[in-house]
C-alpha cells in the first residue's frame, strides 16, 4: 500500500473533554470535601499539588490549570472565610507547592506531547518504509519472472540461429552450383540470341548462315581457331559461311574423298586429330595458317545430312566429349533455324501469291455480283411484263366475252390469271429476298408500335371484321431499319391472319418482352398452328408446309434473312391446331 507523502502528519488527538470535566469535578469535590468539611476547622499540611499529578496520566493542560485555580480558590476560601484570619505562611506554601507541581506537570505534559509527536512521526515513516519495502519486494518478484522469460527466449533464439546458419550454408552450396550452371547456360543463350535475331530478317541463305557463324565461334571460345558452315551442292561442297583466323583458301571443292563426306555418310560427329597424318582426306587449306585438327558434325536439313559444321584448330589435338556435345547441340539449333528460315521465305512467297489471288478473286466476285444485280433487275422488268399482259388479257377476255364463254372456259381463264398472279408474286418475293441478302441497312432506334399501327390502319385485312389485331401499348424501341422491319411485320401479320381455319376470325396479339439487351416481339395468333416436327423447315426458302393456303414459301425465309441482317433472330412456338407464337428478337433501341 502506498502512503501519500503529501498528506500532513495527523495532529495530536485532543484529550477528552468529558473525562477532563469528570476529573475536575471529582478531584475538586474531593479536595473541597477534605479541606472544607473533614478538616474545616484546622489547617492540615496536606499537599495540594498531588492531585495535579493525575494530569500526567490525563494530559490536559486546561484541566491542570483549572484544578490549580480551583485548589487556590479553596485555599483562599478556607483561610479567609472558614478560619477568618488572613493569609498565612502555610497558605503561601500551599499555593507555592501547588504552582510548582502544576509547572512541573505542565513541563512533563509538553515533554510527553513532544515525545508522542515524535513517536507518531516515527511510526508513520515506519509504515511508509514498510509499504515501500513491500512494493520493492513485489517489483522484485516481477523482475525475476521477466528475467526467467528472457532467458527462455534467448535459448529459443539461439536454437533458431543455429538452424538458420545451417540453412544459409545449404543455400550457399546451392548458389555455387547454380552459378556454375548459369555460366554454361549464359554462353549458349548468347548464341541462341544471335540465332533468333538472325531469324526474322529476310536475307539470302548464305548471309543467314554467316550470321550464325560468328556466335558459333564465340561458343567454343579459345578452343576453336575457325568455324565453317558447309553445304553439299550436288557433287561439291560449298562454304555457306566462315569465321576465324584460318582461311579455307577455296569456297568449293569436290565431295569425293573429303572429311565432310565421311561425316555425312556416317551421320555422326567425328574429328581428325592431325590433318598431316591423313593425306587420304581432302581438307582445304592455304599455306601459312593451316588447320591441323578439325571437328565436324552433320548439319541436317529436312531430316537428312545436307552439310557439315566444321570447327578448326591450328594445333593437332583431341576434341573432348564436352566439345562434341556443344557442336552437336549447335548443329541441331542451326538446322532448326535454317529450316525455319526456309519455311519463312516460302511462307512469305505463298502469302504474296495468295494476296494477289485473293484480290483477283474479289474483283471477279464483284463483277459477278454486279452481273447478278443487273440480271435480277432485268428479270423484274422482262419477266413481269409478259405476266402482266397474260393476266390483263385473260381478265379482259373474261370481262368482255363473259356471255359467250362456257363455265369450263371461264374456269380456264381463272386458272390463267391465278397462275400469272402467283408467278408475279414469286418473282417479287424472290427479288426482295435477294435484295435483303445484299442490302446494307441503316440501323436506327425505331418504334415497332408506330409501324404496326400504320400497317393495321392501311390494310382492311388487318381490321375488324376481317381480323382483330391487338398491339400492346408502349412497345419498346428496337434497333432496326424501318423498311426491313416493315417487310418482317407485314409477313408475320399477313401469315397470322392468313393461316386460320375457314370461318374463324383471326385474332392476333403483338406484345414485347425485354431480354437483357434484346427486345423480343411476340406475334400470337389463333391460327392452325404448326406441328413441332415441321417447325425446323418453316424458315427455309420455298417451304410451303400447307398447300391449302396461297403463298410462295418465301415470306418467312425473307423474315429470317432480313432479321439476321439487322443482327436479330426469329423463331416460333406452336402446336398444330392451337395457334402460333412467332417471335422476332432485336437489339433494344
Amino acid at each position, binding site marked *: 500500500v502506498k502512503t501519500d507523502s503529501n498528506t500532513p502528519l495527523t495532529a495530536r488527538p485532543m484529550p477528552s473533554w468529558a473525562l477532563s470535566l469528570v476529573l475536575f469535578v471529582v478531584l475538586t469535590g474531593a479536595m473541597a470535601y477534605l479541606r472544607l468539611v473533614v478538616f474545616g476547622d484546622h489547617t492540615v499540611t496536606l499537599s495540594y499539588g498531588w492531585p495535579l499529578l493525575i494530569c500526567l496520566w490525563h494530559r490536559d493542560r486546561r484541566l491542570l490549570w483549572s484544578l490549580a485555580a480551583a485548589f487556590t480558590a479553596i485555599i483562599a476560601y478556607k483561610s479567609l472565610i472558614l478560619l477568618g484570619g488572613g493569609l498565612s505562611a502555610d497558605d503561601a506554601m500551599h499555593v507555592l507547592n501547588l504552582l510548582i507541581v502544576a509547572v512541573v506537570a505542565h513541563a512533563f505534559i509538553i515533554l510527553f506531547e513532544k515525545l508522542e509527536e515524535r513517536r507518531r512521526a516515527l511510526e508513520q515513516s515506519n509504515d511508509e518504509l514498510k509499504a515501500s519495502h513491500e512494493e520493492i519486494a513485489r517489483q522484485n518478484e516481477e523482475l525475476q519472472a521477466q528475467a526467467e522469460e528472457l532467458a527462455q527466449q534467448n535459448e529459443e533464439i539461439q536454437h533458431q540461429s543455429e538452424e538458420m546458419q545451417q540453412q544459409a550454408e545449404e543455400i550457399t552450396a546451392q548458389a555455387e552450383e547454380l552459378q556454375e550452371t548459369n555460366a554454361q547456360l549464359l554462353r549458349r543463350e548468347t548464341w541462341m540470341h544471335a540465332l533468333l535475331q538472325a531469324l526474322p530478317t529476310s536475307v539470302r541463305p548464305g548471309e543467314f548462315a554467316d550470321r550464325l557463324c560468328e556466335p558459333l565461334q564465340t561458343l567454343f571460345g579459345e578452343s576453336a581457331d575457325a568455324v565453317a558452315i558447309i553445304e553439299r551442292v550436288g557433287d561439291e561442297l560449298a562454304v555457306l559461311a566462315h569465321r576465324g583466323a584460318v582461311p579455307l583458301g577455296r569456297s568449293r571443292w569436290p565431295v569425293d574423298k573429303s572429311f565432310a563426306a565421311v561425316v555425312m555418310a556416317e551421320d555422326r560427329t567425328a574429328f581428325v586429330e592431325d590433318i598431316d597424318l591423313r593425306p587420304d582426306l581432302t581438307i582445304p587449306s592455304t599455306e601459312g595458317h593451316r588447320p591441323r585438327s578439325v571437328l565436324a558434325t552433320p548439319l541436317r536439313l529436312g531430316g537428312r545430312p545436307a552439310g557439315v559444321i566444321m570447327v578448326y584448330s591450328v594445333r593437332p589435338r583431341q576434341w573432348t566429349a564436352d566439345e562434341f556435345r556443344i557442336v552437336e547441340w549447335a548443329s541441331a539449333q542451326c538446322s532448326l533455324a535454317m529450316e525455319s528460315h526456309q519455311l519463312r521465305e516460302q511462307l512469305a512467297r505463298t502469302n504474296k501469291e495468295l494476296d494477289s489471288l485473293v484480290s483477283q478473286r474479289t474483283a471477279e466476285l464483284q463483277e459477278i455480283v454486279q452481273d447478278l444485280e443487273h440480271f435480277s433487275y432485268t428479270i423484274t*422488268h422482262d419477266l*413481269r411484263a409478259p405476266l*402482266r399482259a397474260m393476266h390483263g388479257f385473260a381478265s379482259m377476255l373474261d370481262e368482255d366475252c363473259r356471255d359467250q364463254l362456257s363455265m369450263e372456259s371461264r374456269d380456264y381463264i381463272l386458272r390463267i390469271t391465278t397462275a*400469272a398472279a402467283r408467278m*408475279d408474286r414469286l418473282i417479287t418475293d424472290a427479288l426482295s429476298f435477294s435484295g435483303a441478302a445484299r442490302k446494307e441497312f441503316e440501323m436506327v432506334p425505331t418504334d415497332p408500335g408506330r409501324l404496326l399501327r400504320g400497317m393495321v390502319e392501311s390494310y382492311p385485312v388487318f381490321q375488324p371484321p376481317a381480323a382483330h389485331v391487338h398491339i400492346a401499348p408502349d412497345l419498346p424501341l428496337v434497333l432496326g431499319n424501318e423498311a426491313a422491319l416493315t417487310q418482317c411485320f407485314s409477313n408475320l401479320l399477313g401469315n397470322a391472319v392468313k393461316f386460320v381455319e375457314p370461318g374463324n376470325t383471326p385474332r392476333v396479339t403483338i406484345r414485347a418482352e425485354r431480354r437483357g439487351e434484346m427486345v423480343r416481339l411476340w406475334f400470337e395468333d389463333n391460327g392452325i398452328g404448326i406441328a413441332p416436327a415441321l417447325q425446323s423447315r418453316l424458315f427455309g426458302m420455298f417451304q410451303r408446309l400447307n398447300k391449302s393456303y396461297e403463298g410462295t414459301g418465301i415470306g418467312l425465309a425473307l423474315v429470317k434473312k432480313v432479321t439476321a441482317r439487322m443482327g436479330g433472330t426469329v423463331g416460333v412456338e406452336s402446336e398444330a391446331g392451337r395457334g402460333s407464337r412467332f417471335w422476332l428478337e432485336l437489339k433494344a433501341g
Partner: protein
Amino acid sequence: MSVAESASGEVAILYVEDEPDDVWFMRAAFERCGLSVSLCTVSDGQQAIAYLAGEPPFHDRTRHPLPVIVLLDLNLPLRSGFEVLRWIRAQPGLQKLTVIVFSSSGRTEDRRKAAELGASHYTEKPTSGVQFREVANDLKQRWLAADGAG
C-alpha cells in the same frame, strides 16, 4: 406553264413505254375511264427527249403537243427513264412538268433515286394489265383535276 393543245383541244399525256402490251392496256384503261386526253407514246428514252425538245420528227406541236403529264417507264432502250428524268429537270422550261415514274420495279433505291431526280410521283406497275384502269383513274382524279383539264 404553257401547254400546247392538240388539234382536238385535248391536253396531252406522254407515255414513254417500250412494252406494246402495256401501251395497249393504258389506252384501253383511258378509254374505259373516259379520259378525254390524247395519249402520245414513244418507245425509248431517246425519243422521249426528242419529243419533249420538239426535235424532228416531233417538231409539229399540233400533232405532237407538249404534254401536261409524262408517264415514264424506267427500263427503256437507248436512254433509261432516269436519264430522261434528269434531262427534263435540266431544261429551264420543264422544271414544273408533272413526271410520274411508272415502273415495275418496287426497289426502294429506285424510288429514292426517282425522288432525288425530281419525279413528281412514283407508281409501281400493277400485276395485271386490267389494273391499269386504277392508274388511269388516279391520273384523272389526282393529276388532271388539279390542272383543270378541258
